[in-house]
């Protein structure tokens, strides 16, 4: 089980757990729509960063490239949540 000791495997485990949390727990009606939306999307952003930095090795990429993708995460998450919070249900 050398494979499971690799850092990418730890990242994968975290990603899988985060997915379960958002899909089958945070989406439940027990959480208010706003609380659910914000937490789910912040977690999604966190997951995307994990994949970008560790799977796609952007941690070791030239800084401008890394910043482009960090910006994408920031803008996407902010845009989705920002627009979401404008809606009456929120």
């Amino acid at each position, binding site marked *: 089980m050398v494979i499971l*000791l690799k850092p990418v495997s730890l990242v994968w485990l975290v990603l899988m757990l985060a997915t379960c949390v958002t899909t089958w727990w945070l989406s439940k009606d027990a959480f208010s729509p706003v609380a659910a939306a914000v937490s789910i999307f912040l977690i999604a952003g966190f997951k995307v960063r994990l*994949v970008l930095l560790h*799977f*796609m090795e952007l941690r070791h990429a030239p800084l401008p*490239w890394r910043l482009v993708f960090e910006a994408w995460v920031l803008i996407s998450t902010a845009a*989705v949540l920002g*627009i*979401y919070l*404008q809606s009456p249900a929120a």
Partner: protein
Amino acid sequence: MTELISANHVESRRLPGVEGVWVFIAADMAMFGVLFVSFMLERLENPALFEQSRRALDVNFGGINTLILLTSSWFVCLAVDAAKRDQLPQVPHHLAAAFVCGLAFCASKAFEYTKKLSAGISMLTNDFYMFYYTLTGMHFMHVVAGCVVLGVLWNKSRAGAFTSDNRVGIECGASYWHMVDVLWIVLFPLLYLLR
């Protein structure tokens, strides 16, 4: 053999694969980003319709698909790692596993679409479903293309094409595949979970 070699062994900063693939990845992600915003703006116009339509989606399909893609990305990482360490026999094994995951995603998606279509829900039903079908459809085509890429990489790796000195090809394919994963990580909550 069991040392935890992290990617920190690289001395200087580098992009995996070739820069051109990253231009493609950045542009592709930007395009989907525009569509995410488009979806949200449309949703703002008609939140009740969007919520009602969303409820017909099966969260389990979406969640499981996310787990499948994350696992496929993990296998791709292991394949690239094996190439870096010149563990040549491992490379095709991990790529094959990733490919199988990709196929599983495709099968799951096909099943989900079929269920929706037989219930009479198409991309013309309403604006929510327009976004549902086009966004997941465009993503699905990326997955199919990705499976082709994985298949080609698998074939080449069986001949030992990818080594620590020659991993540009596998890194390019891997980067593309991870992008497909990243897009789904956002698409799934956007369409399926946002109440």
